[in-house]
C-alpha cells in the first residue's frame, strides 16, 4: 500500500497552480485535504504523474455571506463549514449533512471542494449542492467559469471540471423566507458512506408543501434533482412523492441492491416529511 511514483508540486500562488494544471492536465491530481486521494494513491487506484498540493495558496478557503449569497472557498475544511454560523444561517442543510460526513479527524482535513470535485456518488456534499441550487466556480489559466451544480455531476468520480480546471469556490443562494432544510441518511455505522441519503429543501404554505427541492445520494452514479417527486409532492402529498422517487440508474452492490437503496430513500423522505 505505497503509492506509485509521482512528482510533487506545492505552488504558492493560484496562477502557478493553474499553470501547472494547464501543463499537466489529466496527469495531475489536486491535493487539498487528501482524505480520499491519499488512500486512493496508496491503493494505486489513483496514479497521477503530478500531485499538485494547493494547501499553500492563499485565498482558497473562507466563508462569507453577502447580499443573499453564501460563498464557501473550495479548500474550506469540513470542520470549519460545520461550525460556521453563516452556513447554519444561510444553508442549514449543509450543517446537518456535515454531521454525517465521516469523523472529526477526517473533517478536520477534508475539504468541501475536494468532496465536490471527487464526486463520490455516496457522498453528502454533491447531493446538497444539487438540492441547494449551488453554483460551482472553476478556474483555469483560461479564466473562470460558473457551473450550475445540476450540470456538474456526471457520474461516479466524474464531473464537468476540465482537466486543467480547479474548483475555486461554491456559491449558494441563502435560504429564502418560508423554506426549511433537511438532510438525513442511512449508513451501517455513523460516518460511513450513505446507503441512501436525502437532501431536502421545502417551502410550506398553510401546512402544505408549496415548493420542494429533493436530491439523493448513494442511489445513482450522480446526484440529480428529483423533479418528478418534487412536483408530485406539491400536487399530491408525501406518500405519492415517496412513490415518485426514482432511481433508474441505481447502483447495485453485493450488500445493497438497487431496490434496497430506493426503498431506503423512500423511508428517508417519508420520515422527513412526517417531521
Amino acid at each position, binding site marked *: 500500500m505505497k503509492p*506509485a511514483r509521482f512528482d510533487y508540486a506545492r505552488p504558492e500562488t493560484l496562477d502557478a497552480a493553474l499553470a501547472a494544471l494547464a501543463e499537466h492536465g489529466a496527469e495531475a491530481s489536486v491535493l487539498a485535504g487528501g482524505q480520499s486521494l491519499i488512500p486512493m494513491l496508496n491503493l494505486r487506484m489513483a496514479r497521477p504523474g503530478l500531485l499538485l498540493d494547493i494547501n499553500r495558496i492563499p485565498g482558497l478557503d473562507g466563508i462569507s455571506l453577502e447580499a443573499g449569497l453564501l460563498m464557501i472557498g473550495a479548500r474550506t475544511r469540513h470542520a470549519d463549514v460545520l461550525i460556521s454560523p453563516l452556513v447554519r444561517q444561510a444553508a442549514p442543510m449543509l450543517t446537518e449533512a456535515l454531521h454525517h460526513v465521516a469523523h472529526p479527524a477526517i473533517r478536520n482535513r477534508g475539504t468541501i471542494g475536494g468532496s465536490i470535485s471527487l464526486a463520490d456518488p455516496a457522498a453528502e456534499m454533491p447531493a446538497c449542492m444539487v438540492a441547494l441550487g449551488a453554483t460551482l466556480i472553476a478556474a483555469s489559466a483560461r479564466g473562470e467559469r460558473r457551473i450550475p451544480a445540476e450540470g456538474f455531476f456526471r457520474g461516479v468520480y466524474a464531473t464537468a471540471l476540465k482537466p486543467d480546471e480547479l474548483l475555486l469556490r461554491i456559491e449558494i443562494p441563502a435560504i429564502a423566507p418560508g423554506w426549511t432544510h433537511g438532510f438525513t441518511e442511512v449508513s451501517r*455505522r455513523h460516518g460511513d458512506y450513505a446507503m441512501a441519503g436525502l437532501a431536502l429543501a421545502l417551502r410550506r404554505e398553510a401546512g402544505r408543501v408549496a415548493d420542494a427541492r429533493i436530491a439523493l445520494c448513494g442511489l445513482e452514479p450522480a446526484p440529480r434533482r428529483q423533479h418528478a417527486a418534487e412536483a408530485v409532492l406539491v400536487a399530491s402529498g408525501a406518500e405519492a412523492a415517496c412513490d415518485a422517487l426514482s432511481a433508474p440508474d441505481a447502483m447495485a452492490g*453485493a450488500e445493497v441492491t438497487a431496490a434496497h437503496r430506493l426503498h431506503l430513500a423512500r423511508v428517508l423522505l417519508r420520515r422527513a416529511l412526517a417531521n
Partner: protein
Amino acid sequence: MNELLPPGGWIGRPLPRAATRRLVEGRGRYLDDHAAKGELHAAFLRSPFPHAAFRITDREAARALPGVRAVLIAEDLAPACRSWRTQSLAFPGLVSPEQGPLAREHTVYQGEPVALVLAASRAIAEDALELVGTDWDELPAATDPVAALKPDAPAVHQGLPSNLAWRTEFGDGDVEAAFARAALVVEDRLVFTRHTGVPLESRGVLANYDPAAEALEVRLSHQIPHQMQVHLAELLDLPMGRVRVIAGDIGGGFGIKMHVYPDEVAICAASRLLRRPVRWVSDRIEALMADIHAREHVMRARMAVDAEGRILAFDVDDIQGLGAYSIYPRSSTVEAISALRTVGAPYRFEAYRARLRSVLQNKVPTGQYRSVGHPIGCATTERLVDLAAAARREDPLEFRRRNLLREAELPWTNPAGGRMAELSHTATLAEFERLLDLPSLRAEIAAMRGEGRLVGLGFAAVVEYTASGPGAYGPAGIPVSAVDTVVVQLEPGGDVIARASVAEIGQGIQQGIVQVVADAVGVSPSRVTLHTGDTGNAPHGGGAWASRGAGIGGEAAWGAGRKLRAEILGAAASLLQTTPEALDLRDGQVVDKTGATRMTLSDLAATVFFRGHELPGGLQPQFTATHQFRREEDVFLTTNGLQASLVEVDPDTGLVTPLRHWVVGDCGRRLNPLLVDEQVRGGVVQGIGEALLEACRYDPENGQLLTGTLADYLLPMADNAPDITVGHVETPYSGSALGAKGAGEAGTCGAPAAVLCAVNDALAARGAAVTEMPITPAVILRALGTLP
C-alpha cells in the same frame, strides 16, 4: 487444591496495568518500530484469482528497477525451506495438500503469495511487483461450502477427487429414540458468514539470518513465539537453539497471530538465502485477504424436548468452509469440533449426534479466532432453545432455568463429550437476574413497544472450554506446548525479575502475572518486572491462546514465586539464627510473627550477592527459581456465564441498534478484576461485530474478495457498543493453587447468540425471524418481506 492467599494481597485487586502509560504515550515498540542494519523490505505478489494456473514469465524488468535486490519464486526458496502439510491424529484422513512458502504453478486462493520482491524500500518493492511478468490462466473456483460439496463442483485443488477435507460423526446416547419420544422438536438452519480478527497491528516479520553463527533471529508479531521457534527450526532445518523468535509489543492477536503463515516463512527463508535482514509488514489489504478467516458454517440443527420442557437431545449437521488448506499446524477443523462440542453445553440432555463436513474452498484458510467455534455452537443452541420456549409459550429464561445443569449434577461428561465440572449455572442465573432487574426491564421494554418501537431482549447461556491442557493437542501429535513456565530471580536491590512463557498481546496478562508473583514472593508489584515474548529470554511454553494466561501461566508464576520465597526465608532464617517458619516475607520485608521487620529483602539480597563472605558455611541460597505447570486433569477448564442483549430494530431501514448488554460470568478466581472486565467488554463488542457487521464477502460469480478494505469490512466502533454491565460469580478451579480459569474469550462466545435472540425477540412481533449472521439491514428487510 486452592492455596490460602496472603491476606491483603495483590491477587484480586483491580490494578491498572503498569504497561498502559508506555503504550498510551506512544512509546510502545511494535514490529514496524524495529529496524535492522542492512535490512531489505519485502512485498509479495499475491494471486489476484481464487484459482489459477500461473507462470512467472519475466523477472528481469523487476530486477532492473533501481533498489531491487531480488525477485524470488517458489523454486528459489525451496533449498532454504521445507514444505509442510497439515496433519493431525485427531483428524485422521484430513485432506490438506502440501504447502510451501510460495505457490508453485497453481494458486488456490486469492491473496496466496506467488513471488517475493526484496528492495531498498517497501515502495520500490511494490513498484517492482508491477513489473513482474505473469501469465495467469484462471480456473473455475469453488467458494460456497455447500456448492463445493456437489459432485459437479470445480475442484479446489486439481487432482483431488472431491472437496471434502474431512468428515466425522460423533455423540452419545440414543438420538433416534429421544426424538421419537419427544413432545416437541424444534429445528432451524443457521448460516454464519466468514469474518476475521483485524488486530490493530497487522502481522509482520523482521528476519535476520546470521550466516556466521548459522542462526536465525526473527522479530514477529505473534501470539506464540515458542511455537514459531519450533516450526521455523523445523522448516528451515536449524537446531531450535539457533532460532530465536522475539515478539515485542503486540497490537492484538485474537487468534490471527497463532498460525504458521506462508508469507512469514518466506521472509525467514529469504533472509537465509540472501544472508541479510528482511522485513515485511502486512498492509491492511493483505491482512483482510490473507490473514486467516473464521466461522463459515451452515448449521442444520434440531432439538428434542419432552412434555415437561426438558431437553432430550440435539442432532446437528455442520458444513464448515475450511478454506484452501487446513491451517498449519493446528488445523482449521478444530473450529468445527469446538463449535459442535459447544452445542447444548450449558444444559442437561441425554443424547447427541453431530455430523461434520469440512469443505475445501478457493478461499484463504480459516483458523482459530477468539472463542474458537464457541459462538457458532452457542448461537445454534440458543436459537433452538428460544424456538422451544416460544413453541411452549413460555418465558425463554424459564426454559433455560429448567434445563441448565445444576451444580449438584457435576462433574458430568455430556453426550457431546464435554466434561462439565465446577460450573455455577444456578448461582450465575441468580446474579444475572439481580443485575438485569427483569421486572423493571420488562416494564421498560413494554413501554418502548407501546411507543411502536421494535425492541427485543435476548439471552444466551454460555459454557466455554478454556485453558487447554496437554490432552488438547498432545494426542493429535501437534507440537503445541500446553505447559507454561515462569522463572523468577531476586535482584541485589530486592527487585524480582520474572520471565514467563505466556505472551502479552495487549490483553494485559502481564499485569495479572506480576500480581501473582508479588503475592507468591511477598513483594509489591512495583518491584516485579516481567519479561515475555522472547524465546532467547523467556522459558518454553504456550504463549497466548485458549485463555490460558491466568489458569496455566498464573499457576506457573505462583509456583516459581513460592519456591523463591522459600529460598529467601531459608537464607534469612540462617542469617537471623531462627527458623523459616518463624519468619514471613511481606512487602519486601522479612518479618517475624509479630510483624516486626527483621531484615529488608534488599539487605538480604545484597548480603548474598555482594558480601557472601559473611554467610554461614554451607548456605547456598538459590535466588533463581523456576516452575513449569502442566495440568494433569481436565483437558479444558470449563467456565460458564449468561448474557443478555437488548436491541432495537428499525423495521424501515433494517438497522439493528444494540441498546444494552449484560454479562455475568464465572471464570474462577480473577487475578485482576479490572483486566477481566476489560476482556469481557472487548469480547462482547467483538461479538456484536460478528452478529451485526463483520463479513468477509466474496463475489458469488468469480470468487473475488469484496471486502478488501476497512471501508467494506465493517468493524464495530465505539458508537456501535452499548453500555455493557458485567457481573461475576467466582468458583475457583479446585485443581490448582490459584483457581483461575480462562476469561478472555467468554464475551465473544455468548454475545452473537444474545444479539441473535434479541433481534428475533424483536422481530417476533412482526412474525419474522432471522437465521443468518451478520444480521445486516438486508437480512432484516428480507425477513420482514420488504425486500425479495
